[in-house]
Each structure stands twice: as structure tokens, then as C-alpha cells.
């Protein structure tokens, strides 16, 4: 049951689907590039972890779920939140620390939450949201629902005890949780072979008797296919799965490590950039006749406009008033 799957050549690409996937990936890419600019200008503070290079994972996985399904992620979660359907304006306002942000500016880049689209948050402690994902799966079953949970985390979370506790609980209790490890090969600056005795992360599924699979994390269609099967099984049989999406982050760990150059070679980064998921998918769309070069340009233009609007919205949004310091500490 557990095996590495090679993406099968799909049927001819549907134009609407192609447009939707590419638009979302472009939106995340442009949003992140803009966020980096805004960070450099001092508009965004603290830590900022960019998702550039990994867009296919969030977009592909979300595209095979329903709006009422849940998603939860780490602190590198802008892409997951955007893919889930959150308003880029409100995400940018959150990054700016403004009152119209998703959390009224009190969460910031690492803590995006959007209850309106069942996005259970960006969590800042590595591995800590995996038990929460299991809890959401538990809650779905307890309430008799048929939703599933997508839980995204990096390879850095795999050595954490909570990864293993969560997989064990999800397997033991048959919870509908898809654990998606975005293996970008570096936990901050620590290469995977320096952190894990078993670097084939999908193989940990065997230990817990659940479905495990590795997939090309740069191929949005392969991710759709792989996560789609896991979602279908989870919805039908209430079973978890572990998917290892092999990807790469083109930028550093955070804006404080902009180049990510100390622990990896320039040659490696340049080589990986040849696998750019947006370029690969854009070419595929044109080759398949799903989109034209002109369509690609239009998509890019629309996305640029949308991100510019998000920045304008964030700029115009006021800072949270002083009384916000004390609201939401407790709920009445």
C-alpha cells in the first residue's frame, strides 16, 4: 500500500482548472514577493517566512478539497491561507499589523487564522499543530461530519515527538487527517540528512500502518492526484495518510536569512529553480492548449493588480486601537 508514486500523465488539461490553479500559484508567488518588498521597506516586522518555490503544494492539495474541509499549517502559511480562499487584502493587513487584518493585527505573519474558510491557523512552534490537526479530525468524527483536515508542515517537524504522537493517534483512532510534509530539504539551515535517520519521510507511514506516499512537490497536477486519492479515502473510510511533497524553498528560511546561502550552494539553488512549479505548469498549460501565452500574461496582470490592491488596503487600514491589547485574551 505504501509506495512512491510517479505522476501519471493526466488527461488533457481543462481550461478552467488550468486557469484556477495557475492563478492561485501566481497569486501566492506575487503576494510573497510583495511581502518581501514591504518587509524591506519596514512595513512588515518580525519574522517573515516566504513560501516561494512551494506554491504547487498548497494549491494542488487545496484544489481537491471542499470549502468546509479544514486546513492547518506552520508559520510558513501565507500560501495555505491564500489557497484556502482567504482574502489577500486581509492577509496583507495582518502582515502590516492593522485592524483589518484577519486577527486584527494581533497574530502577524506566523499566525494567520480564518474561521470563515476553516483555516485553523498558522502555528509558530515546530510540530505543535500536528496534534491540533488530529484534534480537528477527532472533532469531525465526534460531530459525525465528513470533512477532512489537511495538515501542512516542513521536514523540520518530523524529528519532533508531536509528529509521531499525532501520526500514532490519527492511525489508532482512524482520523480523517492528511499529513502533508513539505520536504524542502532544510530545517532552517539544517539539511535533512543531518536531522533525520530516515530521510524518506513518507516511510514513517509504514510504522503507523497508514498510507504513505512521496510526490513531486513541484508538479501541481501530481499533487492533485496524490492528495486527491488521500482525501477521498479519508472522507470515505476515516483514515489518515502521510504525504511527502518533495519541494524546495527558493528563498532563505526567513527574511533574516534572505539568500539561504550559508548552508546550501548557489549552484544547488539555481538548479532547483529550474523546477519552478509556476514555470513548469505554465508551459504545460500552453503545450496542452489549455491556455495561451496571452492568457498567462493576463493572469499575471490580474494577480499583480490584486496584490497591489491588497497593499493599498493594508496601508489604508488603521492600527489597532490601544484597547485591542486587552481584548480576546479571554472570551466572555
Amino acid at each position: 500500500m505504501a509506495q512512491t508514486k510517479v505522476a501519471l500523465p493526466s488527461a488533457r488539461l481543462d481550461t478552467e482548472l488550468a486557469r484556477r490553479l495557475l492563478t492561485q500559484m501566481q497569486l501566492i508567488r506575487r503576494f510573497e514577493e510583495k511581502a518581501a518588498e514591504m518587509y524591506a521597506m519596514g512595513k512588515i516586522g518580525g519574522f517573515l517566512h516566504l513560501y516561494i518555490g512551494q506554491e504547487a503544494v498548497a494549491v494542488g492539495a487545496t484544489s481537491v478539497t471542499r470549502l468546509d474541509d479544514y486546513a492547518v499549517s506552520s508559520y510558513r502559511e501565507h500560501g495555505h491561507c491564500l489557497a484556502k480562499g482567504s482574502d489577500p487584502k486581509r492577509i496583507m493587513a495582518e502582515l502590516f499589523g492593522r485592524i483589518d487584518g484577519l486577527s486584527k493585527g494581533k497574530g502577524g505573519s506566523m499566525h494567520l487564522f480564518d474561521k470563515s474558510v476553516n483555516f485553523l491557523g498558522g502555528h509558530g512552534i515546530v510540530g505543535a499543530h500536528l496534534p491540533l490537526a488530529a484534534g480537528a479530525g477527532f472533532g469531525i468524527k465526534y460531530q459525525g461530519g465528513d470533512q477532512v483536515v489537511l495538515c501542512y508542515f516542513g521536514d523540520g517537524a518530523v524529528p519532533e515527538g508531536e509528529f509521531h504522537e499525532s501520526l500514532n493517534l490519527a492511525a489508532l483512532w482512524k482520523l480523517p487527517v492528511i499529513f502533508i510534509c513539505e520536504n524542502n530539504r532544510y530545517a532552517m539551515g539544517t539539511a535533512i540528512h543531518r536531522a533525520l535517520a530516515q530521510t524518506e519521510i513518507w516511510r514513517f507511514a509504514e510504522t503507523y500502518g497508514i498510507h504513505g506516499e512521496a510526490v513531486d512537490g513541484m508538479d501541481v497536477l501530481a499533487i492533485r492526484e496524490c492528495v486527491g486519492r488521500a482525501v477521498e479515502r479519508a472522507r470515505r473510510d476515516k483514515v489518515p495518510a502521510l504525504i511527502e511533497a518533495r519541494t524546495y524553498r527558493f528563498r532563505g528560511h526567513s527574511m533574516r536569512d534572505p539568500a539561504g546561502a550559508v548552508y546550501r550552494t548557489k549552484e544547488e539553488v539555481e538548479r532547483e529553480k529550474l523546477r519552478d512549479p509556476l514555470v513548469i505548469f505554465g508551459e504545460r498549460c500552453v503545450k496542452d492548449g489549455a491556455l495561451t501565452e496571452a492568457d498567462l500574461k493576463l493572469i499575471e496582470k490580474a494577480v499583480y493588480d490584486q496584490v497591489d490592491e491588497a497593499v493599498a488596503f493594508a496601508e489604508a487600514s488603521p492600527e489597532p486601537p490601544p484597547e485591542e491589547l486587552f481584548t480576546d485574551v479571554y472570551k466572555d
Partner: protein
Amino acid sequence: MTYREALNLALREEMRRDPRVFVMGEEVGLYEGAYKVTQGLLKEFGEKRIIDTPICESGFTGVGVGAAMLGLRPVVEMMTFNFSILALDQIVNSAAKLCYMSGGQYNIPLVVRGPGGPASQLAAQHSQSMETYFYHVPGLKVVRPSTPADAKGLLKSSIRDENPVIFIESETLYAIKGEVPEDPDYLIPLGQAAIRREGTDVTVIAYMGMLYRALEVAEELAQEGISIEIVDPRTLRPMDTETIVSSVRRTHRCVVIEAGAGFAGMGSEIAAEVQEEAFDDLDAPVARITGENAPMPYARNLELLKTPSKAKIAAAIRKVCA
């Protein structure tokens, strides 16, 4: 009714009242609780709502937080609160902060309950006052119920609360008996202290085992003409500072007793609050009687030295009243 039975009744009543309430933890079901607090619950409510977990405190506490995000009301049992250290990140960084970090979108109505505080010859890792680790954290409420009636009324309020509540019982109190109201809606609001004994010369603040020790000392010192008022805070966060301070304004003296090690303990906080609010009313500095600043030893003679004795408490009160 015993303190243990009062807790059991509170759980049953709240589970009958609200199908969203479930109990999760190590040995809570088939084994009926390491300390039998959940006795009979599996039989009444079944495996869906009384869930035995593997030994993974961080994992199942996080499951509680995640389930609470979906609108459920989990009661997570720590077999003993000493084990909650393994779940500290889930309690402090997840449960306590999600409401704030999400701008109020996700509140976490989670109760984490179980026994804590000094026990009998359980040595350093199983016999310590864990409330200290939690009451510092904005977003958490911390309850220490000293009587069977409080055990019921405060646990029910904790389960109905919209926020994460740390509810620390005591192994040494499980068997004590007391009157417990039968009313299924008997609730004691969180953040409300109780005056356990009225007096005029000194206000003594104590809870759990130390409360009972203080009550005995108060009887003895009454013979010497010292009239002691005893305040049981019941909830450590939010703290009912108003009741404490108004008592001190009447007695002009204040002694805080705590079982845990004294450094940066509850006594430090209450002493600070009292001097800020009622400095001019004080006739003596606020005194702290605390556990010694050492881990809990196993040897019985050393264990007795670790926690404030009646003699030590009496001596400190006499000194403050001199």
C-alpha cells in the same frame, strides 16, 4: 459526599447537560481513572465520550485544543499534574493564545484537570505544586478547589467557561467529605474567593492542604487570643484581589501560606498586590510561609520539613501579630 465523588458528579452532570463535553486522558475509561475520579463514566457515556489515550500528554492535550477549535468542550485529565509539563507547550502556546492570536475567532473551551501539589512520599517528580507554571500565563484560568462543594461548583463552571481552565485537584483531598449541593446547576463563579473563617487580627490566605492546616492553627491560636480570618482564593487566575484586600483592610495584617517552593510563588504575588492596594492599612509586613526551596525529598522526615508545618505556620502568625 467525598471530594472525589463531587468531581465525578460534576463531570456526569455536565456530560448529561451538554453532548459537546467529553473526557480524554490516560486510564480514564476502562481503568476508571488512576484516582477513580472518572469511575463509572465509561459505563454511562460509552467510548465515544470517555476516551482512553496512549501516554502522550502533548499529543492528547493538542487533540483537545484542536477539538475545541471545532466547538467541542474537552475535559483532558492529567493522571497527575506533574505530567502536564510534557503538555506545557500545548497549554501555554496553543490553548492560552489561540483566542488572542486569532483576534477572537477561535476560543478554546478546554479544561485540563487532575491532581497536583504535595502528596505522600512520592518524591520530587510526583509531588510538586504545578499551579505556578500556569497562573503566570494570560489566557489561562487556574482553579484550586479546596472542598467537595467547591470541587463540584468550580469544575462545572470551568467546563462551561469559554476559555482554557487549569483545574488542579489534590490527591490528599480526594477522600475528604463535605456537604455538596445536589442542584445540577450549582455553579461557583471563577474568580471568587471564599472566607473560610472570620477573624479580626490577621488575614491568612491559604488553599488546598494548607487551608486545612491553617484552620487547625487558627483554632489553636484562638486560645491565645489571636483572631484569624482565613481567605481561600479558590481561583488563582483571575485572583479575587478585592476580597483579599478588603479583609486585610479590616485585620491590618496578612500572611500567605503556600505549599510550593516560595521563590516567585503565589505568596510573592499576593504580597505585592496587598502592599500596592493596602499599604497604609498594614501594621506589619506581609509574611510568606512557603514550601522550602528544594525539590520534594522521599525520606519521610525530610518531606515533613519541606512543606510548611503547623508549628511553622503558628510561629509566623504569632510573629506578625506581635
